[in-house]
């Protein structure tokens, strides 16, 4: 138990930065490489790292199983809902032009919302896949 001290402390040190990097990749995705898919996987990687180092129970405190499983449909609904919101303004499905006064800003906002939906679905799916495989082995 004492031998993995460095591993445990190192993991604790690195965890917030992984999450910060995931958020950076998510919200800076409009200006640099990144987006919902990559950020979702990096965020899921953080939970998996917690699970590998501290055990499954600790990981489930960070990301409860019920929560990650609900994230799978919620993200998809955010995406589909953003598309359907176009209808409210008399536009086509997935046309974000009327979300703001300036069509370009509307599109920017729409892209941000859609990427957020992708982030939720991807991270939820990856973490619940990992939980499902690990639990099967117990």
């Amino acid at each position, binding site marked *: 138990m004492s031998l993995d001290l460095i591993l445990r402390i190192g993991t604790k040190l690195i965890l917030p930065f992984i999450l910060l990097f995931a958020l950076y990749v998510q919200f800076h995705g409009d*200006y640099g490489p990144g*987006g919902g*898919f990559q950020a979702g*996987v990096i965020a899921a990687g953080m939970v998996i790292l917690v699970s590998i180092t501290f055990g499954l129970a600790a990981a489930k405190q960070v990301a409860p199983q019920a929560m990650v499983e609900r994230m799978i449909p919620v993200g998809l609904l955010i995406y589909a809902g953003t598309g359907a919101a176009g209808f409210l303004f008399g536009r086509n499905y997935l046309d974000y032009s009327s979300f703001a006064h300036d069509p370009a800003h509307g599109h920017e906002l729409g892209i941000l919302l859609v990427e957020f939906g992708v982030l939720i679905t991807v991270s939820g799916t*990856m973490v619940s*896949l990992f939980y*499902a*495989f690990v639990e099967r082995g117990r």
Partner: protein
Amino acid sequence: MDFFRTVADHYNYVITIFVMVAGLYIVTSRGNLIKKLVGLAIFQTSVYLLYIEPGKILGGTAPILHPDFTVYSNPLPHVLILTAIVVGVATLALGLALVVRINEAFGSIEEEEIIEKDRAP
């Protein structure tokens, strides 16, 4: 000299196709289900390369607009492949889940042993 030029121009495609048929060979010749899935993933990855390679322009840059640059690689294949990668891992997980269930039902992940057990009365 012309021959070497042709080889240099098409080396990417040759290696990509080699990796592709290596994946095909693993899927068709091996009976281990996990190895089959890895072979399938290799096949899939070679398709990623086949899509991205024609989009590259020598001397161009990554498709992030900036006033200093005018030549960008083609972003359309990047979009298609980006989503394909994440879908690929989701389907790989589905395949692995089936393998785990098959292993629980038959006690083996070798194709020949599974067929033998399935035929036994």
